[in-house]
């Protein structure tokens, strides 16, 4: 049996336009309650094997947190079933149920038993928990004397030491300082090595690709994709960027003359290595086919080609004139193919700016500012924008120990 099986789960929320929370009000407004149904999840099917790490991604309101809460048992699915095998702990409840009047020790016992540990199990792990939180000196003080940092540390220490078979990590982890986040992530990786099942909810796509083997993309309550993490991140981007982004108007200088002799009539992206996919892999060849139509012979045309990142920052730009490419006189229709033999980028959608100018740049014949783009899907786990090949060699000066 898989660790988690989600079968045909739907979740409906009733949004009442006016909510009466007392008997008195309900009687007064009897029969006038209006509500609208909102399906936060629709027929989700998902299987998560023991020992795998699944990323759950989607934009805000896609239903990823709702699904996590259903798996955690906090929300009951309106339809469908969820089977889970093993103890579940969710890293979304740091210090849930801590009572300020009780000491740290008493709270550890209470919190851990809320998370499903028996007294004997807590006895065994108590020192680990306190050690992890680095609170040995303060453990017998009332929690109300703790700083907020100590409070969170103790909550985290309990949560990660309850020895869960299934760990649910919510975005909540994003709060806290950087060293705390690093500590959380280190712990998550340790859990992976120990073969625990992890569900990781985030809208930080890079983090998901780094950590998860597989990922599921939710879009407005529907399961848009489930499969490899790299592919999932690409699907997410596709859902979040509907169509080609409308480029900001090119600045006045670059506006082509009204009676321009040559125009770009089409741009096509070709990537033979992944021809059946809408993306290219890092290191694969990529060709940009620029179709032109020249009314009058143009003998000083130079092609400008630039690549930007998602924020519009220029990553690379060149012109055929600068490259020293001899351009023939353009007349009639034809195409110019710009080939990048090795795409040096990692995951992302890269807008391109393509233009035709005179050799001296003084006359702009045509200009397409970030209207076309190509996509790179990174199947690996490297992070960032540039595909850098690295080699690792360990040089030890001292004697080498085996193992």
């Amino acid at each position: 049996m898989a660790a988690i099986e989600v079968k045909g789960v739907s979740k409906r929320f009733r949004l009442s336009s006016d909510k009466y929370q007392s008997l008195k009000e309900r009687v007064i407004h009897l029969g006038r309650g209006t509500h609208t149904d909102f399906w936060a999840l629709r027929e989700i099917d998902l299987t998560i094997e023991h020992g795998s790490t699944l990323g759950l991604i989607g934009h805000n309101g896609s239903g990823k947190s709702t699904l996590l809460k259903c798996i955690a048992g906090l929300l009951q699915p309106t339809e469908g079933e969820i089977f889970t095998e093993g103890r579940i702990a969710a890293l979304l409840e740091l210090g849930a149920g801590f009572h300020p009047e009780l000491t740290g020790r008493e709270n550890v016992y209470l919190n851990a038993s809320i998370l499903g540990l028996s007294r004997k199990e807590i006895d065994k792990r108590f020192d680990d928990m306190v050690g992890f939180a680095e609170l040995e000196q303060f453990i017998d003080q009332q929690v109300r004397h703790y700083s907020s940092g100590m409070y969170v540390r103790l909550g985290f220490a309990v949560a990660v030491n309850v020895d869960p078979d299934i760990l649910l990590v919510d975005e909540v982890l994003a709060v806290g300082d950087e060293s705390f986040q690093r500590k959380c992530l280190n712990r998550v990786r340790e859990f992976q090595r120990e073969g625990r099942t992890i569900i990781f909810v985030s809208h930080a796509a890079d983090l998901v690709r780094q950590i998860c083997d597989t990922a599921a993309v939710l879009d407005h309550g529907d399961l848009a994709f489930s499969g490899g993490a790299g592919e999932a991140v690409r699907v997410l981007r596709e859902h979040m960027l509907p169509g080609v982004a409308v480029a900001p108007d090119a600045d006045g200088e670059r506006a082509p003359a009204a009676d321009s002799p040559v125009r770009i009539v089409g741009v096509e992206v070709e990537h033979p290595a992944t021809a059946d996919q809408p993306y290219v892999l890092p290191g694969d060849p990529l060709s940009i086919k620029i179709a032109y139509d020249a009314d009058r012979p143009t003998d000083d045309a130079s092609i400008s080609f630039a690549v930007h990142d998602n924020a519009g920052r220029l990553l690379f730009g060149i012109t055929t004139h600068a490259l020293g490419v001899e351009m023939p006189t353009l007349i009639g229709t034809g195409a110019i193919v710009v080939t990048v033999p090795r795409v040096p980028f990692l995951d992302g959608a890269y807008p391109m700016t393509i233009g035709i100018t005179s050799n001296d740049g003084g006359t702009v014949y045509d200009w397409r500012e970030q209207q076309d783009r190509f996509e790179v899907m990174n199947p690996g786990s490297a992070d960032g924008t540039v595909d850098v090949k690295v080699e690792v060699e360990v040089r030890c000066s001292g004697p080498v120990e085996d193992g």
Partner: protein
Amino acid sequence: MRRSSNPPSRVLRARRGIHTRLADIWRYRELLVGLVRKELKVKYKNSSLGFLWSLVNPLLYLLVFSIAFQVILRAGIPSFPVYLLSGLLVWNFFSGGVTAGTSSVVVNASLVKKVWFPREVLVLASIGSALVNFFLQMGVLIAFLAIIRYDVAFSYVPLVIPALIVIVVLTSAVALLLSAVNVYLRDTQHFLELALLAWFWVTPIVYPFMLMGGREEKWQAAIYMTNPVTAVVLVFQRAFYAKVDVAAVGGRFGAVDQILPGWSMGGYAAYLGAVAALSVLLLVFSLWVFGRLEGNFAEEL
């Protein structure tokens, strides 16, 4: 692949059966004990008198009712403190447990929204802490009876144990039902206060059972006896107060000189048995309602 020795598997769907839920509650029994301990600790942690506070409430009741009934109204119930306390302590457990249990889910909203565990445990923990208070108060009463060498009806004392079980089941049933309703209708707890006030006066605690239960009009007596708390209170009074007919010592209350019904042991047991059956039925119904409503707790809180 990694499995703990006994992985707790779980099926989550819109409806969970009652036996699954009972099994879940049993699995979380240590949490129940932990929560009871927490409630008691928090209650008495920063008070100088500690648990002595739990004795102050019945003593104040004793003072007020002694003055009101014995002095002002000149009711002649002999050994009034023993009579009052043997019924009042049972009532205090019932009303305290139901009140705390009803608000328990709403009070622990932050927990309910973040962690899964059987929500019934919250209600049962409130009742558990009321039960601990009851034992403390009862212990003091029994010690007092022993010191003054009060004439307890020892043959009826064994009936106290099933009576205690019945009142725990009844309290749990009412509290579970109301705690779930209270999540959706927050003024349930305010209505409850009023209902409990009325309920107190239809239970024979400050006046003798025979005043109502011994009426000539049998139907009036029958209606009066439908109050399930009465059966439990009567058993405690019969065992600890033990005086049935007080005419010989010149005691009386209004028109009656009989305080407790002159039933045999079997009579008391039969009444208690009927209430036990009712309580179990009510508990099953409450668990069913609770199960229907708990699915949306996290959304409503």
